[in-house]
């Protein structure tokens, strides 16, 4: 097997006194898409933020294409090609759609390819093309999420990380986003996808990782997802047939 494109080794991260990640290791191969899921507050977003440089690891190492990148600033990582689309589609409210996209291509590497990037984004999300000069804050929730992804795409990432792209969206828009992500994936961009919606993840990723208590407690490839689905339901709802649901979730599944 080829060396992984992105390699996270024994990552420990926290905020202030509170530790969130307690030894996370992940390999992402080129062209691979992995999905992260698990309960709230257990470290999914923290992991993405650490990879994108918003947080500094307490311990552990992140490598990209063999080179150590942990400890670099977000700006340097964007130049490397690591793009995170943050949760909650927070964009630049008083800028037009076009301006938002141009900010997405701010990094020198991406700025040169901005025309190409715009074409690609407008092809993927024709709705954004229609609303080019509209202010971001006047967009609907779904459109904003599309724009957030568009801004991410403008960065011409080597790795694209999407944090809960369907949060709070209606099913119809979810379907549209799913198709868009599939099209992006088809171009071969490796992705890390965080999502609560498991169906969404199963449709879009090659591998699923369950993040719990700051660790990866379960890792399965797509092929075995049939068993997976049942077990994941069990994880969410506990042992249905027992009188007392087992709280030791991780232990049960692995």
């Amino acid at each position, binding site marked *: 097997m080829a060396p992984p494109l992105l390699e996270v080794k024994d990552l420990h991260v926290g905020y202030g006194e*509170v530790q969130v990640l307690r030894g996370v290791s992940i390999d992402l191969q080129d062209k691979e898409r992995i999905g992260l899921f698990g309960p709230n507050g257990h470290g999914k977003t923290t992991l993405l933020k650490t990879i994108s440089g918003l947080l500094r690891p307490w311990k552990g190492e992140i490598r990209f294409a063999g080179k150590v990148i942990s400890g670099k600033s977000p700006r340097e990582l964007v130049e490397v090609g690591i793009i995170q689309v943050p949760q909650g589609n927070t964009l630049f409210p008083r800028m037009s759609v076009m301006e938002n996209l141009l900010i997405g291509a701010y990094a020198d590497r991406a700025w040169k390819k901005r025309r190409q990037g715009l074409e690609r984004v407008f092809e993927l999300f024709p709705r954004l093309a229609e609303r080019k000069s509209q202010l971001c804050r006047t967009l609907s929730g779904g459109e904003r999420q599309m724009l957030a992804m568009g801004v991410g795409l403008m960065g011409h990432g080597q790795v694209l990380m999407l944090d809960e792209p369907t*949060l709070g969206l209606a099913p119809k828009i979810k379907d549209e986003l799913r198709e868009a992500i599939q099209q992006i994936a088809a171009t071969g961009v490796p992705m890390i996808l965080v999502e609560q919606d498991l169906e969404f993840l199963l449709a879009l990723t090659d591998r699923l990782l369950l993040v719990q*208590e700051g660790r990866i407690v379960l890792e399965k490839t797509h092929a075995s997802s049939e068993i997976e689905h*049942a077990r994941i*339901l069990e994880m969410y*709802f506990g042992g249905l047939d027992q009188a007392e649901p087992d709280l030791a979730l991780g232990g049960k599944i692995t």
Partner: protein
Amino acid sequence: MVDVLVVDKVSKLFGKMRAVDNVTFAVGEKEVYGIAGPNGAGKSTLFNAISGIPYHPDTGKIFFRGKAIHEVHPHVICHLGIARTFQQETVFDTLTVMQNVMVGAVFGHPANGSGTPEDMAVAVLKKVGLADRQDEKAWHLSLFDKKRLMLASALVTQPSLLLLDEPAAGLNRMEIQQTLDLIRSINGDGITIILIEHVLPLLLTVSHRIMILSQGEKLVEALPAEIVRDERVIEAYLGRRSNHGPSAA
């Protein structure tokens, strides 16, 4: 039976987004009422609207033991007997553990409390297991200890209704088990509890009834055993079944 809390067609908007959309429910005496739902479903917003911190609902009414509280000052809501915890671990950083609890002991209830504030503070610290750490500064407690401290400071205000916002988030198994025991014990003391929780096994175990919120709306209200079989709930949590993923159960 008189309802302890009645939430009547409550809505809260952020801009155009309906964070809580026309939600109605009632909680009975000594009940543990669970609230679950995916991220961004409006659970914490609902708590905020009930406790008045930091805002009241935009429309709708909330009654606590028959008294309308949807326009009452938040500190008065506390005095009436509703105490809440926060999703984020929240403490008074520069104060000691004891002082953290003393705030609620002195200010949290009308003057007719049982015993001196100091006695009450020590009692609740004992209850949550922090009695021997009174003089430590709160900022360097662990996550679990901060959560327990927050719970103690809620209990010391002598609430008859306790709103718990994800008490188990970020905790490990053993700590979740302890939290579960603590919730049961508090409920056993006669305190009505509304519990928001993502750790569903905990929620299903301890709740008498459960409401599922999705996109600000009340999706289902049912007994725990019914909830887990409800197609709508599974869909809200795991997404809509499509031809991509195989079906479960």
